[in-house]
């Protein structure tokens, strides 16, 4: 009996977890087939495009989640991505290390940038958003001034084709899911991180080093944003450096996949898988709108309107729960009244 209940519970969780991406795909498929006469994913090129953009979005959303769930909105994540890719990528290309080298070195430089921001944050104790603004200004200046303001060019560079290889993309996605799931959910780092998320002061009083954990979060986020940047650069062919805090756009752009991912992940208590599915849902939606030949601004209006609705739902879900409980209580009272009346 207990096993049967457990199985039905697991089944319910699986259905809840997969519901949003599946519904998104089904709705998109219906819309595209009826309006554009084609499906969302019809050929291998679509699959490739989906996977490449999915990995970028997933990696960046994971990075935002590293700090945001602890109340730290790191606006410098975009600038860290530029630093990691431009310095790490160009050094790797200079050394002839190929695509894997570009990825590894970019992630290493990204992690160093994250370490720097983390150490600054722990020592200066300025509000993360404000610190992020200042650091963005500095990192953008450095990445813009380096390499003759050329950024990182991967187009037609020898050995970087692997970054567009479907098997490699899938392997990296798998490694990211496995590694970050382990770090967030099964390691002592993840345990401390969750304790700090619950209550920073209590965690500190119970002996957890909140400062070290915070720096570790920043380092991980730095490496992840650089990973996202490398695959994005491989997709577009080049990464042009930006100024005037424009790098923040990257952070804002990937908020929706992260938020949707956290909602999906909340059913199974697996935030990493949730963020992957959240990113997949948003990318499917983007592909669906592109197939309708919609321009990017109209796509953004639809996507961010949905993000707004998601936020409204998330912050008011308790009201629906209250209404549901109230209805159940009224029903119970009516049944009892009817039973008493019969007696």
């Amino acid at each position, binding site marked *: 009996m207990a096993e049967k209940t457990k199985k039905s519970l697991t089944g319910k969780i699986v259905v809840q977890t997969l519901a949003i991406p599946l519904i998104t795909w089904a709705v998109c498929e219906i819309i595209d087939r009826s309006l554009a006469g084609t499906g969302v994913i019809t050929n291998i090129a679509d699959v490739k495009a989906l996977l490449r953009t999915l990995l970028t979005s997933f990696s960046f959303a994971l990075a935002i989640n590293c700090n945001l769930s602890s*109340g730290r909105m790191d606006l410098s994540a975009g600038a860290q991505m530029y630093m990691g890719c431009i310095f790490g990528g160009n050094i790797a290309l200079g050394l002839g290390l190929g695509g894997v080298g570009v990825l590894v070195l970019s992630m290493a430089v990204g992690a160093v940038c994250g370490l720097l921001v983390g150490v600054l944050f722990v020592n200066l104790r300025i509000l993360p958003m404000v610190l992020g603004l200042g650091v963005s200004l500095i990192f953008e200046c450095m990445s813009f001034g380096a390499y003759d303001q050329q950024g990182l060019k991967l187009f037609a560079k020898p050995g970087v084709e692997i970054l567009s290889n479907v098997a490699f993309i899938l392997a990296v996605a798998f490694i990211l899911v496995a590694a970050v799931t382990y770090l967030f959910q099964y390691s002592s780092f993840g345990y401390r991180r969750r304790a700090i998320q619950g209550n920073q002061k209590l965690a500190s009083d119970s002996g957890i080093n909140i400062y070290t954990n915070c720096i570790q979060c920043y380092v991980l986020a730095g490496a992840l944003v650089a990973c996202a940047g490398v695959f994005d650069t491989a997709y577009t062919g080049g990464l042009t450096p930006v100024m005037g805090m424009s790098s923040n756009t990257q952070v804002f752009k990937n908020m929706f996949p992260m938020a949707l991912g956290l909602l999906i992940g909340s059913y199974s208590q697996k935030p990493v898988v949730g963020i992957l599915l959240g990113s997949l849902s948003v990318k499917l939606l983007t592909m669906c709108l592109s197939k309708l030949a919609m321009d990017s601004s109209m796509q953004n*209006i639809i996507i961010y309107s949905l993000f707004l609705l998601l936020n409204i739902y998330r912050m008011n879900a308790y009201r629906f729960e209250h209404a549901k409980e109230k209805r159940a209580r009224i029903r119970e009272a009516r049944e009892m009244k009817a039973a008493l009346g019969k007696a």
Partner: protein
Amino acid sequence: MTNTIAVKAAPRLKLTDRIDIIKNKRMFSLAFPLSILLLLILAFGAATGGAFFRGTVLKGLFDQTLIIGTMATAVSFIYTTGNLDISVGSVMGLGAVAGALVYGATENVVLMIGTAIIASILLMLFNGTLSVVFNIKTTMVAVVVMQLYNAIISEVVGADTLKVDFQLCKMLEDGGFRYGAFIIYFVVCLLAFHFTEMGRQLRFIGGNKKCAEQTGMNPKKAICISFLMAGIGIGIAAVFTIIRTGSVGSTTGNGMGMDVMLATVLGGMSIFGGAKSNTYSGIIGALTVSALNKGLLMLGVSSTVIQGVRGVIFLLLVFLNSERPSTLPAREQF
């Protein structure tokens, strides 16, 4: 005799404690950023051999400050309540688009000004409603609506620009309209913020929302008022933007929310809101940023390096001007 013993027995204060006492003085938030601004102006004046003090340079400095300064003054009402809004640049952009569209249809300047201000107020009230009625954190509201408003601007304007009669813009620019509007708005804000019950309520709510609620204040109403006051200022900044360039494009207002936040914090405003908040930080911060940009440019420093220097000085000033909490500062955003 007893007093002498008591004084001798009292422990000597550490240097950090003394600094904290000075930083906690009420006037410190005004004196410190103002001193930095004056120091910068004097340093650039000396480094440029007095060229920095020329009338045209100083006028240019003030002109550059006007838009950011007005917006920073406006958002101080929101920051005071402990909320943040980085979407103000996009709101200003959309307000300017609405104004320019109305001008294109009617060629009536009064309608243009009115539309820009009313559109900005409505957009800010929409942001406030999302926060107050639907309980979404203001930062998250700002992140979403910023993208949404930018997309709407791009959709409406497209690749073109909305033009407003150049002669009219020139007339409004030279006729002192901007200075007059800014001074009136600034004085109204100063009075409303520092000398009215509403201002005191906003500061109290920013300092301790729960305590304010238990005292009988209505934080939701206060937050709506703060967004309304901000909307007026942002609308005025939208009019200034139209006048300054005579056109509105798809990138109008992009990234300005960040510039406004930068100026506000640099001017000594506490990002946590509360009793130490004020309305003049924004204009001081905006003047500091403009002086730094102009001075370094006059010294031949490249714009790329200027941004880096701005970042370093920003972090340094914020660090010196803010209190160091015992644990890591965090704010629930999501």
